[in-house]
């Protein structure tokens, strides 16, 4: 078995072990004297780094294999097996997962290193790294899982870590609420995932419920059931990747420490949905309707989040909405069957979004946890390293050529256009403009103009090296990652797409070069327009605006949270208390109540017959006698 390599399982194991060790260390010293931060830091980073090394080994090993049979598997043990259902705790590295593997471990390691600086001085330093390691382990299980069920382990695991890390500062109710929200909304998605798996299993899973077998049998899937499976799985993806209607948790998730936002809520976990859709490309490819649904939901989410992003004050919220928006792009990509484009955007996005978040983190760190952009300003001089790296990130996010975002986003837009989804393309282009606008609004307000808060400004300075080095590495990535998948018109040969091809089922539509160039030019024009507008409005120091009308509406996120609260959360609680207060005692328990009432009444009621008079007792006897006589005389003859 040349495809079997036993170290595949070790990749997630290292961070998990790290998590365990750190957790035990933390708990055992929680009330006493803690271990030094250095020890925690080293232990915390060692796992991700080893995983990264292994990821590279995997990558190179795959690279050395022939293109059509590039995969490595490792079945660690039979997880559970009941009837036809055989689930092995197996790991699969194919081009798709190896790509994810590499960048997840890479960015994960960087962010761990960054966190050592960011989190220093926190009393729960150990806990943080334990959770982070746990997250990374789960994420790697998600990525490497050889079948949907194993993937689901990671899927839920990352959800759990997300919850734990969002409510990391758990003395504050809001943070915990945000964590709850994230977990519950994710769970709604998980429901879809589980049901999707169930349907999929009963349809084609009997002869093996891992990707390889499923892929072989995917032709057996009827369109109807295929659609059901696709949509249910997409519900799962929506939950995890914050798409309409389940996106609401992600902005709130910014309550967690910034490295968490960077790693989990920007670079890795939230893209799991996209990864999952790509994983199941062999099913989605059969059901174009499902793809269209995915694409439309994606692009609408992109639009909506971009609109929200335009009006936010909180630096992390802006980035969060931009994440949602970018995720929308990715779904639009995978929805129009351009899986490699979607995944490529995941890849590039991971770099620039992590970069932006870490940059924002540095800013916040420098300003002592100030997150409102209208309290910042002019930080360019004080924090040049941060500024420049964030600028690169912003350009990449805006999709300005030749930064990485440009190539991936353009690839998606182009695929949409090419596959005939003109509407999606159109909205996509508009969103690109809006993205450019709000990204540079952030940059200009924070780094240009006059400082708005003098006192904080004076103390601001660039972060220590342990934080800035990861920034620079990421900035380099954001700058260059796009070149890995240079499209044909720029003389590239879509390296990443070709690499991914064996894992995916996609067709590359062909359109004329002119159309492609025109579309690209239009996009760039729109992006530039967005940047220019932002420059005009904010570069020279605008004050915090008073929002009215649509802006206020958008600032308040169209009141979707409130809507959900009224439509789902409150009724849910109301139903709960109705059941407890009214239904349970008065309806469900009624059979008990009524029978006990009857019972008591009957008991007291029958007492009156025992009057104590002898002749009345005789009367009972005689009445009984005569009734029976009556019946008996009827039966005579």
């Amino acid at each position, binding site marked *: 078995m040349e495809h079997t390599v036993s170290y595949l399982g070790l990749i997630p194991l290292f961070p998990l072990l790290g998590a365990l060790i750190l957790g035990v260390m933390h708990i055992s010293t929680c009330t006493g004297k803690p271990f030094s931060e250095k020890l925690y830091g080293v232990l915390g980073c060692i796992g991700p780094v080893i995983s990264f090394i292994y990821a590279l080994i995997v990558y190179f090993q795959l690279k050395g294999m022939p293109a059509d049979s590039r995969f490595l598997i490792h079945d660690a043990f039979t997880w559970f097996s009941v009837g036809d259902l055989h689930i092995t705790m197996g790991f699969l590295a194919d081009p798709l997962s190896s790509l994810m593997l590499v960048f997840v471990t890479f960015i994960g390691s960087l962010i761990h290193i960054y966190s050592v600086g960011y989190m220093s001085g926190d009393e729960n330093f150990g806990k943080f790294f334990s959770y982070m390691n746990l997250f990374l382990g789960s994420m790697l299980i998600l990525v490497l899982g050889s079948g949907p069920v194993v993937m689901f382990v990671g899927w839920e695991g990352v959800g759990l870590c997300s919850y734990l890390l969002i409510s990391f500062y758990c003395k504050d109710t809001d943070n915990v609420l945000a964590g709850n929200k994230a977990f519950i909304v994710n769970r709604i998605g998980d429901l879809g995932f589980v049901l999707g798996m169930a349907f999929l299993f009963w349809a084609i899973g009997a002869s093996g419920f891992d990707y390889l077998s499923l892929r072989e049998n995917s032709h057996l899937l009827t369109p109807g059931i295929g659609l059901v499976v696709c949509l249910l799985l997409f519900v799962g993806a929506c939950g995890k990747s914050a798409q309409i209607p389940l996106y609401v948790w992600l902005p709130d998730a910014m309550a967690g420490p910034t490295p968490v936002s960077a790693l989990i809520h920007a670079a890795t976990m939230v893209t799991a949905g996209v990864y999952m859709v790509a994983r199941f490309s062999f099913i989605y490819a059969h059901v174009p309707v499902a793809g269209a649904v995915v694409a439309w939901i994606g692009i609408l989410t992109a639009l909506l989040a971009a609109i929200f992003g335009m009006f936010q004050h909180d630096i992390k919220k802006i980035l969060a909405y931009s994440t949602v928006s970018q995720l929308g792009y990715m779904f639009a990509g995978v929805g129009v069957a351009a899986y490699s484009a979607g995944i490529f955007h995941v890849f590039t996005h991971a770099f620039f979004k992590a970069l932006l978040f870490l940059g924002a983190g540095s800013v916040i760190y420098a300003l002592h946890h100030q997150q409102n952009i209208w309290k910042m300003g002019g930080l360019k001089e004080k924090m040049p390293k941060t500024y420049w790296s964030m600028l690169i990130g912003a350009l990449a996010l805006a999709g300005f050529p030749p930064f990485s975002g440009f190539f991936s986003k353009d690839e998606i837009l182009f695929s949409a256009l090419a596959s005939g989804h003109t509407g999606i393309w159109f909205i996509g282009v508009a969103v690109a403009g809006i993205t450019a606008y709000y990204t540079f609004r952030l940059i200009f307000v924070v780094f240009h103009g006059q400082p708005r808060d003098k006192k904080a400004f004076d103390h601001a300075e660039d972060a220590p090296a342990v934080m800035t080095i990861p920034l620079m590495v990421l900035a380099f990535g954001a700058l260059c990652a796009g070149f890995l998948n240079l499209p044909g018109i720029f003389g590239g040969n879509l390296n990443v797409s070709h690499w991914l091809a064996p894992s995916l089922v996609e067709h590359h539509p062909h359109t004329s070069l002119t159309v492609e160039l025109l579309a690209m030019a239009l996009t760039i024009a729109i992006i530039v327009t967005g940047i220019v507008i932002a420059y005009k409005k904010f570069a020279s120091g605008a004050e915090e605006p008073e929002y009215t009308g649509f802006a206020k509406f958008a600032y308040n996120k169209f009141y979707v949270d409130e809507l959900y609260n009224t439509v789902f959360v409150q009724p849910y609680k109301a139903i709960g208390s109705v059941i407890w207060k009214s239904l349970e005692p008065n309806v469900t328990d009624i059979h008990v109540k009524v029978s006990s009432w009857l*019972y*008591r009444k*009957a*008991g*007291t*009621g*029958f*007492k009156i*017959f*025992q009057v*104590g008079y*002898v002749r*009345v*007792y*005789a009367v*009972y*006897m005689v*009445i*009984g*006698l005569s009734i*029976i*006589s009556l019946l*008996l005389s009827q039966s*005579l003859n």
Partner: protein
Amino acid sequence: MLLSAFEKVKLENAPFVSMGFFAAAFVMQLTAGNHESALYGSVFNGMFVSNSFTQAAGLVIIGCGFFTAMTCLTYFKQNNPCTMEFYSVLFFATGGMLMLTLSRELITSFISLEIMSLAIYILVGYDRKRVTSTEALLKYLLLGAFAGSFFVMGSALVYGGAGSTKFAEISSFISTHSAGTPLLIGGAFFIFVAFLFKVAAFPFHAWVIDVYDGAATPVTGFMATALKAATFTVFANFLALNGAMQKEWIDFLFYIALFTMFGGNLIAIGQSNIKRMLAASGIVHSGYLLIALVAISTESFSGSVIAYYLAAYSVGTLGIFAALSYLGGKGESRMSFDDFKGLAKVRPYSAAAIAVFLLSMAGIPPTAGFMGKFYIITSAISANQMALAVFGVISSILSMWYYLRLIIIMYFQEPEDTFEIENSIFAPACTFILVFCVFALGLYPIVI
């Protein structure tokens, strides 16, 4: 055999001796042959027949007598003392019951019934100073005599219809004619009325509560068990004399059983006095026994189910009455539910014993009561009387509450009383022997 024990009683005074006689009679009954035999066939003209069923019933009755005598020892230390006539009358009653179980002739049955009844009337009214005792006597006597006259009328009609009052001849008459002859129907009906009265079946049950309440506690125990055992035995013998006879009356008994169970339950729910509650629960148990009567298979009638149930029921009931006898205190001052608050904290063993008896009566395994109920239900369903079985079960659900109520009061409430009692070993000893019996019968259900 019985008479020998019974003649001597006039010479004996002490209750110990009477206990000895009961024990001796018990052993004799136990060792007596197990085969169907007519006692003194030629002399008594086949009016007495002994078989395993009557033997078992006899054992139950004698056992009841034994334990009652034992209980009385303690009881009378706390209450108005008795004379030795009490024990002799107890023997008369027992003798009457034994004859009743053996008798295979209507008038013999009637006379035995009257011996038993008269003796029990005397026992009920024994404490002449108490008005309630006299009242109970009055009620029982009036209604008992009333019911007795029905028996006579019924016998007359049966005699008119079948030309004889012997079971064997009635049976052969039915075989050649039919059980549906009007005279037989009428006669049997009136005889049933008397039996149903004695076992307190609905609607002839009303007396039982007041009478049990008024009588002295050990007597109540004796009435509730031995009397029922004797009556049911003869009832079953009469009913089983011919298959056609029993079939004729199945529907009738069905409804009687039904109403008896539910009527008894409804009365029991509202009671606040333990003796009255037990009386009412006795009605319910009669209902169960009636189920068994409905379900007896006349082809191979052995009465085992009835006998077992009687034994199980007797053990439980006697036990609880024995416990009440010594816990009741002077002049039966503690008889209502509330008087037993927190008994478990003061007298844990007594409370445990009472709880066991109550659970047995409620039919909770592994007590004898459960096995009895199990047999009854089995026999009912075997006889294709599913409905009756289900109703029986529902009725025992209804009865749970008032049994549990006493347990709850004993265990879960705080004591207000010190439960001081006369120091006498007999009734407590009797109680604990009976506890042992409850489990022994439950775990080794001997079925004849």
